[in-house]
């Protein structure tokens, strides 16, 4: 591995690394706009100029690969002067409408100006080039052409990642304009990713723009529940209202991206029809009352009439808690259901036809697809199971259903008892994606009303049954138990899963 000296610091980096990445490995940030680790090198912004010993001209770090013995300066006066001048060029025609710009607060133009420039403008405001302010590029993205710094990240994203020709630059010089090809729209299934890679506020997400200033957002690391890929995401919310989901880097799963469909998965969380209180029939009840009623109903019941229906929409922990609970009751009848839309989107990249985040997990835990004899009477169900699916295995006219759900939906009113639980955004636990990667989701805020995790409801129930176990107090504790009991989970550690996930054994 070549050794390079960057600002007096010796770093050992793999062959082929460019100087931006090499500096990053040494803890030094080389400011840049057009470079993106997942895209080809365009070298157009000229922000990353650095000095390399024995080279008369400054070189762009993004297009320079490390070489043994290279000595690089990223912050001497010459480099800083060049950087300031590049920033000045980028800013002369910039509208600087930060007060009304959604990017303000997470804008690289603001950031670098504050850090590297702070110069007074030498360019008269009335001479600025004016361009279009609100260009509708497609279903997700709006363009403010005056803010665009023409780094072409978005263009390269479309060509190289989404593999479509939708965006291009037209015109020349300072009239250059980002646009869609004639007759084309920015409408590939990954289109909204251009918003995050745009270093400035030129591209905004129609679903987010003008909703919330970014400094009010609180960020929670999670996983998209939209399909079995389990793209890593951030939940950005303010006071319990989610404003956007953005992709979070996981090179093994979604790299830097997520699909547009996945970005909508937060909508049901914010929906009005959340189930807030436990219900029996039409009546809201206190949790204790409901639990006592369930306890009563289950007294003396033949365990072979009891079955648990897990869900590929729920976490490993929730499903595992259900399995453990049934085991305490003496039943081992475990089925699961999943959400199966008629025409699922699918491609050969991130978008999987299985629209459930945890199919692999729930099947690994021993749950079977629903089927077989109609012989069960008592059902503990996770999520909105269609009634006809249940009827396939229910003794005719005789079923009793205890159903855990985040929403108060007509379709589950067949349940005798409804218990409110959190959505993915309100739940701590893990999903196992289609690769067998166990990934953590985290609660951005608690569920509304008296909602609580499935495993918490079940723990309380177990106590009423005066059974010693399971008695779970936290999701990590549940995970520990799961790792001890389930072969595939053996050796996995909740802490080590961290924010990048760990593969199941085998």
């Amino acid at each position: 591995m070549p050794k390079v000296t960057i600002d007096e610091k010796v770093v050992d980096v793999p062959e082929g690394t460019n100087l931006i990445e090499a500096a990053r490995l040494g803890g030094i940030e080389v400011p840049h706009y057009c470079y993106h680790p997942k895209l080809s090198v365009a070298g157009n912004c000229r922000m990353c100029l650095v000095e390399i010993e024995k080279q008369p001209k400054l070189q762009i770090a993004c297009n320079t690969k490390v070489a043994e013995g290279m000595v690089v300066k990223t912050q001497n006066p010459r480099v800083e002067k060049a950087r300031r001048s590049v920033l000045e060029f980028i800013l002369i025609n910039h509208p600087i409408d930060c007060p009304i710009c959604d990017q303000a607060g997470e804008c690289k133009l603001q950031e670098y100006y504050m850090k590297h420039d702070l110069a007074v403008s030498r360019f008269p405001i009335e001479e600025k080039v004016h361009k279009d302010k609100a260009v509708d590029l497609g279903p997700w993205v709006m363009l403010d052409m005056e803010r665009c710094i023409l780094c072409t990240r978005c263009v390269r994203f479309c060509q190289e990642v989404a593999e479509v020709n939708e965006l291009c630059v037209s015109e020349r010089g300072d009239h250059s304009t980002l646009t869609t090809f004639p007759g084309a729209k920015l409408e590939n299934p990954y289109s909204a990713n251009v918003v995050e890679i745009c270093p400035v506020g030129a591209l905004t997400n129609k679903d987010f723009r003008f909703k919330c200033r970014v400094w009010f957002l609180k960020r929670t690391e999670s996983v998209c529940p939209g399909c079995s890929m389990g793209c890593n995401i951030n939940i950005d919310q303010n006071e319990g209202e989610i404003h956007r989901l953005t992709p979070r880097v996981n090179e093994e799963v979604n790299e830097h991206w997520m699909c547009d469909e996945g970005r909508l998965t937060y909508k049901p969380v914010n929906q009005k029809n959340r189930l807030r209180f436990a219900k029996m029939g039409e009546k809201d009840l206190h949790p204790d009352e409901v639990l006592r009623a369930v306890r009563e109903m289950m007294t003396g019941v033949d365990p072979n009439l009891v079955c648990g229906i897990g869900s590929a929409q729920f976490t490993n922990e929730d499903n595992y808690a259900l399995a453990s609970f049934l085991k305490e009751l003496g039943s081992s009848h475990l089925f699961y259901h999943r959400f199966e839309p008629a025409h699922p989107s699918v491609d050969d990249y991130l978008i999987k036809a299985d629209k459930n985040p945890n199919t692999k997990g729930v099947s690994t835990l021993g749950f079977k697809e629903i089927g077989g004899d109609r012989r069960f009477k008592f059902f503990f169900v996770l999520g909105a199971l269609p009634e006809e699916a249940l009827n396939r295995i229910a003794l005719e006219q005789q079923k009793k259903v205890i159903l855990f759900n985040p929403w108060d939906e007509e379709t589950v009113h067949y349940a005798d008892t409804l218990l409110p639980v959190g959505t993915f955004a309100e739940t701590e636990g893990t999903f196992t994606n289609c690769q067998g990667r166990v990934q953590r989701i985290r609660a951005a805020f608690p569920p509304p009303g008296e909602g609580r995790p499935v495993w918490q409801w079940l723990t309380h129930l177990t106590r009423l049954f005066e059974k010693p176990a399971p008695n779970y107090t936290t999701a990590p504790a549940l995970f520990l138990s799961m790792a001890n009991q389930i072969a595939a989970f053996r050796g996995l550690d909740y802490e080590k899963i961290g924010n990048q996930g760990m593969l199941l054994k085998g």
Partner: protein
Amino acid sequence: MDRVLTANFDHPDVDKLPVYEGRGGYRSLKKVFSLKPEQVIEEVKSSGLRGRGGAGFGTGMKWGFVPQNSGKPIYLCVNADEGEPGTFKDRELLLRDPHRLIEGVIIASYAIRCHTAYLYLRGEFFEPYQKLEAAIREAYTKGYLGKNILGTGYDLDLHIHRGAGGYICGEETALIESLEGKRGYPRLKPPFPAVQGLFGCPTVVNNVETLSALPYILEKGAASYKKMGTEKSPGTKLFSISGPVQKPGVYEIELGYPLRKFIHEDAGGMLPGKILKAVIPGGSSVPILDASEVEQVNLDYESMNQFGTFLGSGGVIVIDEDFCLVKALKVLAKFYAHESCGQCSPCREGTGWVHKIMTRMEAGKGTPADLDLLLNLADNMTGQTICVLADSIAMPTRSYIKKFRQEFEDHVALQKCSKM
């Protein structure tokens, strides 16, 4: 001096193949095909021929960079995009002696083992296009192009691609992008075209004039060519001279020739009543020379460098005392702002900025601070970009203001042009 490039210029019908052949045309090929490609490269190397597109890079040396074991096809691109203000010499070669260029293309292609050559022609060159098309057709018919050329087993196709009007497409990597059907954005270098050019394959880009010199060199030998010119700038070159001189036009001149002599003798001297103030010697993008420098400098690469400028494309623009340099710089800035491809921040924004300042100044609204601002911008635009178009306005800006600062200051102080 032998006329290497313009020997046929006095023969109006030489664009017809039989006339060209009658004047010795395509005769070099016999010798060329008797040599190995490497030997052709050697011959061109020893002739000392340097690229006439502007940079003056050794032609044989450039060919030598083409890897011969890449397993990929090798391409030759003929740069006929001539767009630099003040430069109009390739057009004459295309119009008046198209077969000489085709012969040169065959020689170069054979030397680098290329079987497909593209001629990238400036879109506005319609008449040259017609002449070239006809000449290429004749060459195919006569077996100078196509399969098994002159029975040697060597194949070569030559295609014309007409540009769409961007000056930047004359920059060799923008030319390649444009040929590939993309927007004419210059590429980052490295990789250089010799290694990774057209369609990702090894590619040589040569100027029309460079290639047109090859038939002479191969027929008469490198030694004859080297006898002309200077030690480091051998041979002859075309100069296109414009401005208030008696006989503007295109001249073939032996390199090393005094500029003063070229202007006052060959081009017939200044128009009556006009006094020479300055000369832009190598196309619009090179630094300007003042009258005293014009007296001393010679028309070769080294002498020009000594005076801080470049031989460039050989576009000699003569400027007289009555012509306003503020206006000259404004016109240039407008050109480069219009032609900047817009990729690099310093060029995209800087060319436009310089143009705005110059427009203001020309209209009498400049301020004394503008001059230093311009010099500062010129510095900030130099050596920071993907291609040298940004330098092409920075260099004139710096040199005009440094050498003629008084004229700029007067213009600012008077708030109008003193030339009117």
